[in-house]
């Protein structure tokens, strides 16, 4: 991981999906700046610098989170809820990237404040295209809030 820190946090339990996602993003030369976690609990530990990510303390937060909904331990919607309700992580762009196109999932995600919701297309070409557009948009086109580490927020997690 570079000194600039993690650009993208990918939260997905499927190794195949992780491989495909990384493959699709490969051309964006962002591979070394993607961190992959395999469940919701790990994602929260990573972001809040808890065991086993204590050493991340003080480092800036990722610029983008790609979040699957169906996750072991803590599911995607719960992760989303925690992150969007915590003032330290609230401004971080979160994109749900999932196989589901269920109305319930869509509604719940937007209610919780997701920044974007993408159903992974079966067609790999379209998937790759989608991810490229996504990366380009959020990491280059979009103006992100000033990068900050976890401690910058005085408000307590609620």
């Amino acid at each position, binding site marked *: 991981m570079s000194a600039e820190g993690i650009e993208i946090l990918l939260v997905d339990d*499927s190794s*195949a999906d992780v491989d495909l996602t990384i493959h699709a993003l490969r051309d964006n030369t962002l591979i070394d700046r993607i961190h992959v976690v395999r469940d919701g609990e790990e994602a929260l530990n990573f972001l809040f610098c808890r065991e086993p990510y204590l050493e991340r303390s003080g480092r800036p937060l990722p610029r983008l989170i790609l979040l699957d909904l169906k996750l072991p331990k803590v599911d995607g919607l719960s992760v989303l809820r925690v992150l969007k309700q915590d003032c330290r992580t609230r401004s971080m762009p979160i994109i749900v990237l999932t196989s589901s196109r*269920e*109305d319930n999932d869509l509604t719940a995600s937007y209610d919780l404040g997701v920044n974007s919701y993408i159903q992974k297309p*079966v067609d*790999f*070409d379209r998937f790759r295209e989608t991810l490229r557009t996504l990366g380009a948009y959020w990491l280059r086109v979009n103006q992100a809030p000033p990068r900050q580490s976890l401690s910058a927020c005085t408000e307590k997690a609620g």
Partner: protein
Amino acid sequence: MQFLKSLIFPGGLMPHGTCYLWTPSLIGLNVLSDSLIALSYLSIPITLVHFTRKRRDIPFSWMFLCFGAFIVACGGTHLMEVWTVWFPSYWLAGAWKAVTAGISVITAILLIRMVPRVLALPGTQWLLELNQQLIGEVEQRAQAESSLRRVSEELEERVAERTAALLATNQSLRESELRYRTLVEHAPEAIVMLDLDVGRFSDTNENAERLFGMSREELLRVGPVEVSPPFQPDGRPSADAARAELEKALRHDTPRFEWMHRSAAGKDIPCEISLIRLPYSGRNLVRASIVDISGRKQAEQEIRKLNAELESRVKVRTAQLEAANRDLESFTYSVSHDLRAPLRHMDGFSRILVEEYGEQLPPGAKQHLARVRSATLHMGRLVDDLLNLARVGRGSLKIAPTDLNELVAETIQSLEAEARGRAVEWRVGRLSRAQCDPGLMRQVFFNLLSNSLKFTHSREKAVIEIGEIPAQGETVIFVRDNGVGFDMKYADKLFQVFQRLHTDEEFEGTGVGLAIVYRILQKHGGAIRAEASPRNGATFFLTLTRPLPAVKAASEVLGGAA
């Protein structure tokens, strides 16, 4: 004595016979005539006396007596004539004559004096007139009597008539009374008449006796309170409650209310009572008709119980259904999530395989991989369509007033990519506003228009028309194209899931799109029908909220082929 002897037998005188020279015939003639005269004269007064005694109404009867005396006297003189033939008692005869003369003079005087009075007596003519008059009067009397008789007869007739009428009235009254009694007696409900002035029943029917378990005589000794428990189910004392209801009846209301009665055996009987005041001179009579509603009450209770049971069963059932729904949802969820993920992986890694190791693969292998990808994508579409169909079936309609023109415009815009590079003419007519679920209707237009776009692929210029036509008061929307159409004998398969009328090589598809359209319209209460012929395009007619009216053949309504 001497005097009398000398009077009768005077000396010195000759008997009268001597003058006749004792000629026997002469003496015989005189003696016989005088004797007959004397006899006659003596018989006349007897007749007169008899007459006056019999006819006491005859006026001047004393005159007859005078005549009587006069005639007797005359008769006496003739007797003396006979006597003196043999005995010369001329003194006696002279004396007798003197007496006779006196009586005659008196009678004559009296007679003369009487004449004017006798003349004053009515004469025969007058009597005749009187008689005539009497006859007239008698006739009049007879007439009067006959007319009296007539009047009397008439009167009798009228009396008879009146009597008959009265009898008839009486009869009809009796019948009416009988009818009324029958009505009351055989009424299905118990009926009692309550005399409010004495507070007791004044009449009852058999059903009342049966209801209360009391004889008529027993019932007529009591009032409503005696056949009720002390308190009604709502807690009111029966006496108060009864008074309140009876007062309503007296005010000419017709109260109808539920009431708890108590039979002689002490059994409480829930009843429904209706009261009505009866017209009856000078008395306050109220009729109560009482229906035993024990059965109804019991039925109500049973219904309540059944309802409660039903409710609990509905709850259980609802819980079961909710569980089933959750199962279905989780199934749908896993279909969409778990089934699509492997497909994505199959496609993704096939693609990567070709990209990264393509050079090392023999040409046939690359072709096979392309087929794997194509099959994967097809299955992905199938899964998506099935999920759509399931979503339509499962979701509830969100009805809103919708501008269908907007939906059509959006749909055409979303199909722009597919239409790119092709000559496509969209003929869009004006559509009315509709009450529908806009999201689902967008899907309907998308499926129909993308179908049209797909099946006109082989046409040099695709013409796709959307509009509406009135048909039997309904607005029917149509979507028409000049595509390949289909054979009408397969029309019934058109809207069934997975039924396709073309091969995958000809036209790609899953066979779910029109099934979704059908399901959406069915959910709205509308319908869809297609008309087509091979190579001549297809027309879809649809209604949103009503069954589809019979629409004339598309070509007839819409003119020649587009």
